[in-house]
């Protein structure tokens, strides 16, 4: 094989020499034949002609000999490619348009595929990641499909299961790191010592946890996540062994993790369970209802998810029987599991599948368009092809030549596409990070490039094959002198029409998709969030919890923060709260639901226990975010720990639980009636967990009756950013050990909350705009050719008295017929695409008539404009010139 390859290569570079030798050999033959003829007594001139006659066409033999010489694919390819490159070089306009549309199409596909592959398809970066599952304890009747686990529960699942190789736990808590310029809040994952072994993770540096690290009283140790290591230590390998002072203890760094997707949340560092004071307290361990941890497990080899689910459900059933108090019958407790892969990717799936479809459609359009351009060009090349056929090129040879040209175009296009994809990769990774923790795994790796190669070859075949197969040059008319307008086969014209129809149809589907997203985005922006986000500054303040150990100390910290912040010039009103509207954490995790009971209403065991989204707010919270009071009163400073326990509820809860009754004055309890809380007011609803989510049942408790809150909110009279530095000073003045993070404005939080639909809309819109542009160019091209081919006919018509407007109508009718057929087909295609999109839409039906109509009208208008230009040219045809040209 290498030998023949070498021979092929040698032959390629010897083509010139071979040509010369062939020439000499033929000449020698003819001379010998001529001399032989002369010897037979024929006149020299006659002899030469006779020799030529007996030899046949010299050029045809040369071509045959060349074919023998070049019947190795590589050489043919080289020859065809060089010729193709020359042909393309001679038509820069065509080449540029084709390469550009193909490049955009292939680039869009490469980029989106890199995301789909990196996020959805690539195996998890854990050893045998397919065996990893996440356990989920659910209480469907209590509308809670992801309860966490208590220590007791984890112990039982671990001890009793038959199907799991190992079980590990995970929860997340905040620490404060000292020693830097400012205290830094560190998000720490607290995991069992076997966590990394179970996940099959080898550390990048150092080691992972050993069982001894988890022992009570062991030295505190840390493992850094890759991202945190890069961010705060710039990838310095000497970080292993360094000591971090966090809260009241020194923690030694023992290792650094490789880049991994983190689930269920992003963490800076990992610690063993002994590091968390809550998790290690005896009271917590003994409490079966203290559910705080997530549970990961690895299936035993050969065990399926459903087998494990059945096995674990049995354990859950036994627990329910043994501890009926901990598993109320009306909650419907149960256990299920999901593969880690699914958990990591399901958020991204709908969006990226829709985008992949859209990108695929754009590429189809680019194919159709290039096929159309190629067809148009073929008509002009009819004579060249006829000449080549006359010189002995077979049909197969011509098709091969045309296909090579298509391949060349699509390969150049794909090179451009890969550049475009590389350029947009960063943006896409950031975009994907909004949907999945796996975004960091997206790259233009070999698999993606292979995909691009396959796509571009397929593209070249798709847009090259139809025109190439239609290339059946009929020698006589094409070569006839003066046949300046080669006859166009009806079949080919039909093919071009069909391509335009397909383009219109695909564009319609894409435009409807983009239109629906846009409508949905507008609806989202119109949603009344229930509060006024303008000029409200938010920051998270984390106190050092080893210094503030009691609830009262925390409350005092919060109160002092309010006091100091209020004193900063420009602060209109100041509040502390346990969260704020459209907080990214809330968007990701949903309501903080707590069971409660209403005084005077006996709990109904057949109905789920009432639940409410529980929040803590200081007295001025409502005024700060401008949440209107509807009934009763708001909190005052008198609502403190000594006073009567009170609460404010939202309108939805009032309507849901009290209907037409007045909830003010009613009492509820969160502890089975041990203590009662009086409702003193009703406030408006807030879109707390996303503008697209209906308000939940919400309840606010005054901060002075609780143990403080973590978010500082300030409504400012000036631009919020101006106050930032002074506010930070105020926070450090209260306690220099306070850590500040998540500083932003409510306005920004609101914008961020719809960033993913906005970006999805932009991408789909981009694809749709591309589609419409390509289609308009396609229609204009086809119509222009149709007009130039009918010049003669139109000339006759006009000479016979047809008016300019009549000609205009005739051409427009021809074009718009195609467009209307395309629109009709597009309706069918759009039904399919938009059904896929229904999960991405908000307050808009996939069949929204307004969008469909608007899109149809827009597309028809663009198409009409594209027809109009060539049609206008038709009306300017000078009948005399048209007739004389024949």
């Amino acid at each position, binding site marked *: 094989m290498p030998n023949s390859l070498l021979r092929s290569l040698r032959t390629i570079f010897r083509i010139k020499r071979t040509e010369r030798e062939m020439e000499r*050999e033929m000449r*020698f*033959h003819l001379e010998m034949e001529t001399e032989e003829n002369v010897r037979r007594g024929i006149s020299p001139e006659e002899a030469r002609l006779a020799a030529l006659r007996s*030899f046949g066409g010299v050029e045809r033999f040369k071509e*045959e*000999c060349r074919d*023998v010489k070049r*019947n190795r694919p590589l050489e043919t390819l080289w020859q065809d490619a060089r010729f193709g490159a020359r042909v393309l070089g001679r038509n820069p306009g065509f080449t540029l348009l084709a390469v550009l549309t193909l490049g955009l199409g292939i680039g869009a596909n490469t980029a989106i595929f890199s995301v789909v592959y990196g996020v959805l398809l690539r195996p998890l970066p854990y050893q045998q990641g397919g065996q990893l599952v996440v356990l989920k304890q659910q209480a469907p009747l209590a509308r809670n499909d992801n309860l966490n686990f208590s220590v007791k529960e984890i112990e039982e699942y671990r001890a009793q299961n038959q199907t799991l190789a190992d079980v590990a736990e995970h929860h997340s808590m905040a620490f404060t790191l000292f020693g830097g310029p400012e205290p830094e809040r560190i998000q720490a994952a607290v995991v069992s010592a076997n966590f990394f072994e179970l996940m099959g993770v080898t550390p990048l540096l150092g080691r992972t946890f050993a069982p001894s690290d988890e022992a009570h009283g062991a030295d505190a140790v840390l493992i850094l996540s890759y991202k945190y290591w890069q961010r705060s230590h710039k990838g310095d390998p000497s970080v292993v062994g360094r000591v971090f002072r966090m809260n009241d203890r020194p923690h030694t760094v023992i290792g650094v993790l490789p880049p991994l997707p983190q689930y269920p949340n992003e963490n800076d560092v990992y610690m063993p369970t002994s590091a968390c004071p809550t998790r290690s307290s005896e009271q917590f361990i003994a409490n079966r209802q203290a559910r705080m941890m997530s549970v990961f497990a690895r299936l035993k080899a050969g065990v399926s998810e459903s087998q494990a689910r059945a096995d674990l459900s049995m354990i859950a059933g036994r627990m329910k029987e043994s501890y009926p108090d901990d598993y109320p019958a009306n909650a419907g407790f149960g256990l299920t599991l999901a593969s880690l892969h699914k958990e990591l990717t399901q958020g991204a799936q709908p969006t990226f599948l829709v985008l992949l479809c859209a990108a695929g459609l754009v590429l189809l359009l680019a194919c159709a368009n290039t096929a159309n351009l190629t067809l148009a060009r073929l008509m002009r090349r009819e004579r060249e092809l006829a000449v080549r056929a006359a010189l002995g090129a077979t049909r197969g040879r011509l098709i091969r030549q045309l296909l090579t040209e298509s391949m060349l175009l699509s390969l150049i296009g794909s090179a451009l596409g890969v550049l475009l994809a590389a350029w947009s990769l960063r943006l896409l990774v950031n975009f994907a990070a909004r949907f999945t923790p796996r975004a960091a795994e997206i790259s233009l790796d070999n698999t993606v490039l292979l995909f691009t190669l396959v796509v571009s070859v397929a593209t070249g075949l798709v847009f090259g094959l139809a025109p190439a197969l239609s290339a059946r040059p009929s020698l006589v008319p094409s070569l006839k002198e003066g046949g300046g307008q080669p006859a166009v086969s009806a079949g080919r014209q039909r093919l071009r029409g069909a391509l335009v129809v397909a383009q219109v149809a695909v564009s319609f589907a894409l435009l409807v998709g983009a239109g629906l997203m846009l409508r949905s985005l507008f609806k989202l922006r119109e949603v009344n969030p229930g509060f006024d986000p303008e000029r409200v500054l938010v920051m998270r303040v984390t106190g050092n919890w080893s210094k503030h150990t009691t609830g009262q100390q925390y409350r005092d910290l919060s109160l002092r923060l309010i006091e100091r912040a209020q004193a900063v010039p420009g602060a209109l009103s100041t509040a502390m709260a346990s969260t704020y509207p459209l907080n990214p954490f809330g968007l990701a995790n949903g309501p903080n639901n707590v069971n409660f009971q209403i005084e005077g209403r006996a709990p109904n065991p057949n109905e789920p226990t009432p639940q409410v989204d529980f929040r803590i707010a200081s007295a001025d919270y409502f005024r700060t975010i401008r949440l209107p009071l509807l009934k009763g009163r708001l909190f005052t400073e008198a609502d403190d720990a000594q006073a009567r326990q009170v609460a404010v509820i939202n309108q939805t809860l009032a309507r849901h639980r009290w209907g037409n009754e007045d909830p003010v004055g009613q009492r509820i309890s969160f502890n089975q009636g041990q203590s009662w809380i009086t409702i003193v007011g009703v406030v408006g609803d807030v879109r707390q967990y996303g503008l697209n989510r209906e308000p939940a049942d919400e309840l606010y408790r005054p901060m002075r009756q609780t143990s403080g809150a973590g978010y500082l909110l300030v409504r400012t009279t000036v631009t919020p950013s101006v106050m930032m530095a002074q506010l930070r000073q105020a926070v450090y003045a209260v306690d220099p050990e306070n850590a500040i993070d998540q500083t932003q404005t409510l306005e920004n939080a609101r914008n961020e909350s719809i960033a993913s639909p906005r970006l999805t809309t932009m991408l789909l819109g981009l694809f749709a705009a591309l589609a419409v542009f390509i289609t308009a160019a396609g229609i204009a091209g086809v119509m222009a050719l149709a007009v130039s081919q009918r010049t003669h006919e139109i000339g006759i018509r006009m000479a016979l008295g047809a008016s300019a407007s009549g000609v205009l109508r005739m051409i427009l009718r021809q074009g718009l017929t195609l467009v209307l057929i395309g629109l009709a087909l597009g309706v069918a295609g759009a039904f399919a695409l938009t059904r896929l999109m229904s999960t991405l839409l908000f307050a808009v039906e996939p069949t929204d008539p307004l969008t469909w109509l608007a899109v149809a009208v827009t597309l028809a208008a663009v198409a009409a404009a594209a027809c109009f230009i060539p049609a206008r040219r038709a009306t300017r045809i000078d009948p005399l010139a048209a007739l004389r040209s024949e």
Partner: protein
Amino acid sequence: MAKTKSDLLQGTLDMLILKTLALEPMHGWGVSQRIQQISSGVLNINQGSLYPALYRLEDQGWIKSEWGASDNNRQAKYYKLTRAGRKQLDEETANWQRLSAAIEQVLQAG
């Protein structure tokens, strides 16, 4: 074309070329002349198919070519049988003989 001349069977041209070159190295025109002479003018080689055949045989490695001086001192391309070509000729000759013997038998039985 005269009636007494026969068109060559597909594939036999290669064999005839190999056979001719087995006698001595020769140029293309020489090959065509020689075949006509030896077959007493019965086999008429279409010169148009001679050269592609020569190129094909060379491509397969059965013959090789080099430039040399002809009888009248002109540069001509001479073709020469290779070792592989000789083996190929033996095989094809054996095949041909089997085939023609078989045809002979059929014709005589008729």
